[in-house]
């Protein structure tokens, strides 16, 4: 008896927060985190992303990796909207410490101070930090 294939995920939906704290390219953490974000979105989970510490460098615009022979995955952040991943947050303190502003970023984000970020983190079911 063949089971009918259902592409809608009907399991529990949890609030997932991905905390991105590493710069891209120097280590593989940023790319791996992005892969898990996409998988979570495929299972229709309630996904939010935070960029803090060196993680803010992941979404700096005008990345060009031609000279280092590594795939430029920064465009993927702009595609997240298509997977209904639209809650992107950046910690204000992390941006400022790196001489960056919202204008330097390649996706629309909400800038939060660390207190607001603390509240956001506390409201999650699952927090995955990388």
């Amino acid at each position, binding site marked *: 008896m063949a089971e009918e294939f259902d592409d809608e995920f009907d399991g529990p939906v949890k609030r997932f927060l991905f905390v991105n704290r590493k*710069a891209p390219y*120097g280590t593989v953490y940023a790319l791996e985190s992005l892969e898990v974000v996409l998988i979570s979105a495929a299972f229709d989970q309630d996904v939010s992303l935070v960029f803090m510490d060196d993680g803010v460098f992941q979404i*700096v615009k005008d990345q*060009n*990796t*031609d*000279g*280092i022979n590594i795939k430029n995955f920064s465009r993927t952040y702009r595609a997240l909207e298509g997977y209904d991943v639209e809650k992107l947050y950046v910690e204000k303190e992390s941006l400022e410490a790196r*001489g960056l502003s919202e204008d330097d970023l390649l996706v629309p984000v909400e800038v939060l101070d660390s207190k607001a970020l603390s509240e956001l983190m506390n409201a999650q079911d699952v927090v995955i930090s990388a």
Partner: protein
Amino acid sequence: MKMLHVVNKSPFEKSSLSSCLRVAKNDSGILLIEDGVFGALQGTSVTDEIAGRSADFKIYVLGPDLAARGLSEKPIIDGIEIIDYEGFVDLAVEHGAVNSWL
């Protein structure tokens, strides 16, 4: 013989660059590569520490690593020279020893 110090860790995350600046002999070369290139930026929380020592050393930053991170057009600390991979090879040849601060 002058030594070339190579730093590949973010100054916001690791103390490699601070340790290098503390220990390296004056007139050494310091090359910032990979996530180490963040140390070359103006207007960050670590700019003063590095700019304050820029007269003691010859500091270089690898251009392709700046470009990969979207930082080619960002202001760099005065005195820091942007080099390419050929320049990296030249520095390694010119200096007596290379110290990689992993």
